[in-house]
């Protein structure tokens, strides 16, 4: 029974991916992609990666989907002319052959992997007690491989700098996105008043529960960012100008605290990002707490895009 379910799930996933690739309409392709993201959440549950499922549900399906929908809406008129640029039949065939070859090569690799599978689960299980957290993924993210997480937070900041640097000169320092024209008593405004309080509770809960169960700062921050964006989408609040000092401080506060705790480790534990024995849990919680608002801001601003409106007087 489980096999039947999994095979059906895999077929549905492939079907949706194929649909996303071959359909003619831009909007429909984006919808296919969102459905695909939601479906892969189920696949991750089947693969016993609940943390990954949570991230995929939050970022893969939700935020990426909204990002692409917005872009598809703004670029919808550009699709018609581009249909003339469809590559010739030979190129399509060649692309098909190359892609099939890559798939087959990967498939052969999948079937030829060594047995028994290498795993680091035993090492994690042996050392997790030192970190004080109960969720092995959180232990990996913030203790065993915390350098990855630090660099990830910095990559997000760099991506945001890249997005901002695309602003036209006269808009630099201004507000990102267009002003929203929405009926203040409309249904969207209603939803944007009712949903965020609930969303903030859920986001904080997902963040907090991450120490011992699936969850954590990225997933929590995504939910908080989504609620912030919903309020802006409904026109209840405007996007902040990117020249605001509080905004810039908020963006770098998380990574700075992370780096500071890392440097502290040089003195107390003799290693960058090392934690002194017994202090691992409070330091991990401090890093996560500092990263949460920064990540919320970065994720929300990444979705809003480059500044488009000049600085207010």
């Amino acid at each position, binding site marked *: 029974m489980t096999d039947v379910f999994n095979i059906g799930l895999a077929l549905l996933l492939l079907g949706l991916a194929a*649909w996303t690739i071959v359909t003619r309409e831009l909007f429909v392709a984006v919808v296919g992609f969102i459905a695909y993201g939601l479906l892969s959440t189920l696949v991750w549950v089947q693969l016993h990666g609940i943390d990954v*499922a949570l991230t995929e549900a939050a970022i893969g399906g939700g935020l990426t989907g909204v990002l692409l929908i917005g872009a598809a809406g703004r670029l919808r008129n550009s699709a018609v002319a581009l249909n003339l640029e469809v590559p010739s039949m030979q190129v399509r065939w060649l692309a098909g052959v190359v892609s099939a070859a890559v798939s087959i090569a990967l498939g052969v690799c999948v079937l030829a992997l060594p047995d028994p599978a290498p795993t680091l689960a035993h090492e994690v299980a042996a050392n997790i007690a030192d970190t004080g957290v109960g969720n092995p993924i959180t232990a990996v993210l913030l203790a065993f491989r915390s350098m990855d997480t630090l660099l990830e937070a910095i990559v997000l900041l760099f991506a945001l700098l890249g997005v901002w640097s695309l602003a036209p000169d006269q808009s630099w320092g201004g507000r990102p996105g267009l002003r929203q024209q929405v009926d203040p008593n409309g249904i969207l405004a209603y939803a944007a008043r009712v949903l965020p309080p609930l969303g903030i509770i859920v986001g904080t809960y997902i963040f907090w529960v991450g120490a011992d169960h699936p969850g954590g700062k990225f997933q929590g921050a995504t939910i908080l960012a989504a609620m912030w964006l919903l309020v802006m989408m409904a026109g209840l609040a405007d996007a902040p100008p990117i020249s605001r000092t509080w905004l810039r401080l908020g963006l770098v506060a998380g990574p700075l605290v992370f780096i500071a705790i890392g440097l502290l480790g040089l003195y107390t534990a003799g290693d960058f990002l090392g934690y002194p024995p017994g202090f691992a849990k409070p330091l991990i919680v401090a890093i996560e707490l500092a990263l949460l608002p920064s990540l919320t801001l970065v994720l929300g601003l990444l979705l809003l895009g480059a500044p488009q409106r000049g600085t207010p007087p």
Partner: protein
Amino acid sequence: MAEFLLMAAGFVLAMVALGLVRILRGASAADSMMAVQLFGTGGIAALLLLGAATGEAAVIDVALTLALLAAFASFAFVKAAGDAAGQDAKVKSDT
């Protein structure tokens, strides 16, 4: 019991897939908005059933996240489609 829950999850998923085929073939903007809605409801139901079948308590948290983000995506989608239609109408009336 787990067997039954898995069967129910598969059934709901199959229904969602069937509905999705219909919606994606229709290809009007309103129909595609419904696809997100359909996946929000059906996907969450399948996820909850799957979580109960495998005994992973944390799946409820995933479903909670999905419920919030699917709602957010639906609102964004309706707004994008509505804005696009509004702008098209404006262009039409201008010319």
